[in-house]
């Protein structure tokens, strides 16, 4: 029998057992209550307890069994495992039925089970972080066994070239040519991020200042969601926009000033990424500026400062931790942005300070390494995980610093909604 059919059969039988448990449990509890005995819980609660006692152990057994199968590679045939679970279900049904007694706190028992289910759900998010870390670290370690960590961090030539030959056991044919120096990739990433920040921070911050300090409330209620639209546009769409519309425009403008620009220059993805990030900065900065206490503005105005001076010398310095925090989040976002650079930036690792040349980024190389028809074991494929590890470390530290900054702001001005 196919595994699908087995699973369907298993769930069907389990469902049936659960139904039986529910009706038997309710009937028994109703009978006991009808006999005049005072009970701790309602018949329905006994019924639900019976269902939990039936299905719970069975599901736990099958889940644990599946994990043992996968993790330890133990040979338990699936039918035996499922049959074992069903036996557990039957045992659970009997135990559950015996618990339908007047002195049993069915409701509290259900509560305890539910609590554990909720804790398990909450653990999933921890497991996700853990999973990302484990998957990246393990594959990255395999990569660093083939190529030294030091060369990876400091090398200036990224040329995976013939690394697949090494994976195919033909190392002597040219695998020595493969070089994994990540400096050009990070240089490209930081260049594009810097361009994006040059667009996003001034526009985002000034928009936030306008919305928080100058704009009439009608403009504000309209402008905020409009800006949010910029953040809601899928990145693949921005990538197309950057490659088809912005890049030729940049080439034309650069040509007008006599500068030679490549069609996959770094400016186009940088500018478009900056546009995408504007709402990240403006939204958070707006919130922060709004939560600077009004007494500070009143004090400043009372001393005869103009509105502009108040904003520049009082409000912005007070909001600075929040603004920096927003900018750091934006940088982390820009570093990890993938689709825009995949579609609009170059593929050639290029160590240059000229933004009009083509250059590639970390995320572009990750995508390039994992979408080809390469063997998973090859150094080029594994290099994607090494790059991912660095990306993870950098964005994680940026996020943590950002959280610490905003927490400091929050404690200083006692605002709770940030």
């Amino acid at each position, binding site marked *: 029998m196919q595994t699908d059919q087995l699973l369907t059969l298993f769930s069907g039988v389990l469902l049936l057992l659960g139904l039986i448990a529910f009706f038997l449990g309710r009937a028994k509890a109703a009978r006991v209550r009808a006999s005049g005995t005072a009970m701790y819980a309602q018949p329905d609660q006994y019924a639900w307890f019976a269902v939990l006692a039936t299905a719970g152990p069975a599901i736990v057994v099958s889940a644990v069994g599946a994990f043992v199968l*996968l993790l330890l590679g133990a040979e338990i045939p699936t039918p035996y495992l499922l049959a074992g679970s069903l036996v557990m279900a039957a045992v659970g049904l009997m135990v559950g039925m015996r618990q339908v007694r007047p002195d049993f706190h069915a409701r509290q028992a259900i*509560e305890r089970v539910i*609590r554990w289910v*909720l*804790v398990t*759900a*909450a653990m999933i*998010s*921890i497991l*996700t*972080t853990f999973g*990302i870390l484990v*998957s*990246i670290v393990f*594959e990255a370690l395999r990569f660093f066994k083939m190529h030294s960590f030091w060369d990876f961090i400091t090398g200036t030539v990224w040329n995976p070239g013939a690394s697949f030959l090494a994976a195919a056991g033909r190392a002597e044919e040219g695998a020595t040519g493969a070089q994994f120096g990540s400096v050009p990739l990070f240089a490209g990433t930081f260049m594009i991020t810097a361009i994006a920040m040059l667009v996003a921070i*001034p*526009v985002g*911050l*000034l*928009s936030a*200042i306008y919305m928080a300090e*100058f*704009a009439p409330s009608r403009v504000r209620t309209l402008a905020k969601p*409009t*800006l949010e*639209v910029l953040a*809601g546009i*899928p*990145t*693949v*769409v921005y*990538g*197309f926009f950057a490659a088809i*519309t912005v890049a030729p425009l940049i080439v034309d403008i650069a040509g007008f000033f006599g500068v030679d620009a490549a069609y996959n220059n770094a400016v186009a993805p940088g500018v478009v990424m900056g*546009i995408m990030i*504007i709402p990240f900065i*403006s939204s958070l900065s707006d919130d922060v500026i709004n939560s600077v206490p009004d007494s500070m503005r009143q004090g400043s105005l009372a001393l005869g400062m*103009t*509105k*502009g*001076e108040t*904003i520049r010398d009082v409000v912005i310095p007070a909001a600075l931790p929040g603004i920096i925090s927003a900018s750091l989040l934006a940088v*982390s976002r820009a570093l*990890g*942005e*993938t*689709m825009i650079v*995949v*579609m609009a930036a170059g593929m050639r690792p290029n160590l240059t300070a000229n933004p009009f040349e083509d250059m590639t980024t970390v*995320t572009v190389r*990750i995508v390039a390494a*994992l*979408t080809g028809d390469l063997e*998973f074991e090859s150094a080029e494929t594994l290099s*994607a*995980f090494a790059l*991912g590890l660095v*990306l993870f470390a950098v*964005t994680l530290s940026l*996020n943590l610093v950002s959280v610490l900054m905003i927490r400091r702001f929050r404690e200083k001005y006692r605002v709770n909604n940030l």
Partner: protein
Amino acid sequence: MSQTFDEISSQLRKRHRRSARLKWISMGALGLAGLFLLWFFSDMLGKGLPAFQQAQIQVEVDYNEDASRMGRAALDPDLSRLVSRTFERMIPVQIRENPELLGTSETRWVLANAQVDQYLKGHRHKLNEQQVVLVDELLAEGRVELKFNTNFFTTGDSKMAEASGILSAAVGTVMTMLVTLAIAFPIGVMTAVYLEEFAPDNRFTQLIEININNLAAIPSILFGLLGLAIFINFFGVPRSSPLVGGMTLALMTLPVIIIATRTALRSVPDSIRHAAFGVGCSRWQMVRDHVLPLAMPGIMTGSIIGLAQAMGETAPLIIVGMVAFIPDVGASFTEAATVLPAQIFTWAGEPEKAFVEKTAGGILVLLTILIFLNATAVILRKKFERRW
């Protein structure tokens, strides 16, 4: 040294001018952002709207012996260079299925190829001069026309621009989103309920909270690496399938749903909880019967926004292989499929010029869906939001 009144007031004027300048500059920044948005949408509309029209051509189809082997023989040799090859390929199949067609002929509107289409729309094309003259003649006779492109909505991907459509990608998106929602919604709501209503304030709870905030800020491509290493290589989930794509996106959407649900739960006033406890509810009964129903509009709004985010996500799906060429509409959660953003990405990489408008057309469809989803979320919030 004292200043005269005139000096002081001129200084003051200067300071006020500077203040006004800040106002205008900051207003300009907001205007600039608005202009970006306007530029973007007008550019996309300009490029994408033509995709909803497609050139069709009226031809005499002659179902003869030769045509049953090679479809091209059914058409006038000059015209056959203007007709889409997908139509020519179908002729032998049609004859095989309906043998009585053999020997008959009919006049019908068929799909023109991408070059005719591009010529009619005034874009760059690869027609030679004779063909241009021929198309102009046909145009004058009314035998070539731009018609509404139903094909775009009823077919899957194709290597020929004129015959490619978004249906298979749309179905893939729906299936992937079903998986995402089925995983992320219950787990997200349960996590939020635990953190807000059950959890004691200890180290473990704080760890979960920090972790969730951090997950929300991790680059999406890293989720793709997780999907590849854990779901595909370790658990053996089929590559490129809506199942693995949906699972990967679910982990990404989880923090969004958790954060939205927590906000919604927090906005339910404590008096509701006190009243529930007062009449003897247990904690779970209080949550299930009182707090959750009141928080539901907020939870739904957050989930829809999370879903819209997941729907536009491409990077992790590329890593788990959902950029396959899928001409047929998929029917299974474990078979290879593609999604709308991935389809857009594939088309954007096609060298053929005619695919540019297909890409932009796909983008318009995706943006329409996203705007619709977000509008639904806003309306839900407006309609059911309660201020306590």
